[in-house]
């Protein structure tokens, strides 16, 4: 079963932080308070889109061909992800 990385608190919907990391080889554990990077806070479908986009050398035309969708549809999907990323980054930006 593919586990989904939770990024929002199920209780209050605030962004979740990473508290511990462990090495899969020697089982060393690191604990602390780490913020998830903005990309990890996106939905898995959005993250997959970004991976495919990078693998397509950033070509929306190629992406559209692969996804069997029109160019503006794929461009709109990318623009929607950009909007979501900007919203995620908002509370992360340090206040002046």
């Amino acid at each position: 079963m593919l586990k989904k990385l939770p990024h929002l608190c199920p209780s209050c919907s605030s962004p979740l932080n990473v508290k511990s990391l462990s090495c899969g080889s020697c089982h060393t554990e690191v604990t602390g308070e780490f913020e998830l990077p903005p990309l990890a806070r996106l939905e898995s479908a959005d993250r997959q889109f970004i991976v495919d986009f990078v693998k397509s050398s950033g070509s929306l035309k190629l992406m559209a061909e692969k996804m069997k969708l029109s160019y503006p549809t794929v461009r709109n999907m990318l623009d929607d992800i950009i909007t979501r990323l900007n919203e995620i980054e908002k509370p992360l930006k340090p206040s002046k």
Partner: protein
Amino acid sequence: MKTWLFNPFKFIAGNRALLLGIGVMLLSAIVCSLETIHLDGVLDVHKGREAPSYFYFIEPLIDWLCLVIPLYIFGKSFSVSAIRFIDVAGTSALARYPMFFVVLLCMLSPNLPTDEQKILNTIQTNPHVLMQLTVIGILVIPFIVWTVALMYNAYSLSANLKGPKAVWSFIASVVIAEILSKVIINSII
């Protein structure tokens, strides 16, 4: 199925949509020239007025371009996306394909004289003509609504606009296009 009927632009846009749209426009123009049907406005169809054959091919192009230009200007002004002219032009051309069915329905309508007084006389002497016109008028409505829905979806997708901004700029574009196309077509004929 619903997507293909009301938003085929999710799958087809740009050059492909433009070619398909122009293909349907040509087909409509051929039928129009044979039956003296005029697409003399963005959402207008009239039958009966004689005109040179080239005119039937120019009319749908004028209708389409009169809509594309304001849509592209509004799209460029309101959208945060990098919109392409070919997408607005292509999807708007394809969005006009239900007008072909309107033209086919118009073939069934009786030939009326161009003079208003003569039209009244024809209707008074042949009451079934009015009935025929009413039935065709009612049958045409869903196809016009379908065309408008397609035009809006074409604009919304190609300009990446949603909500009130998209609705109001679309309505303004249709009104501008209707006036512009009427003025241009009437000045040519």
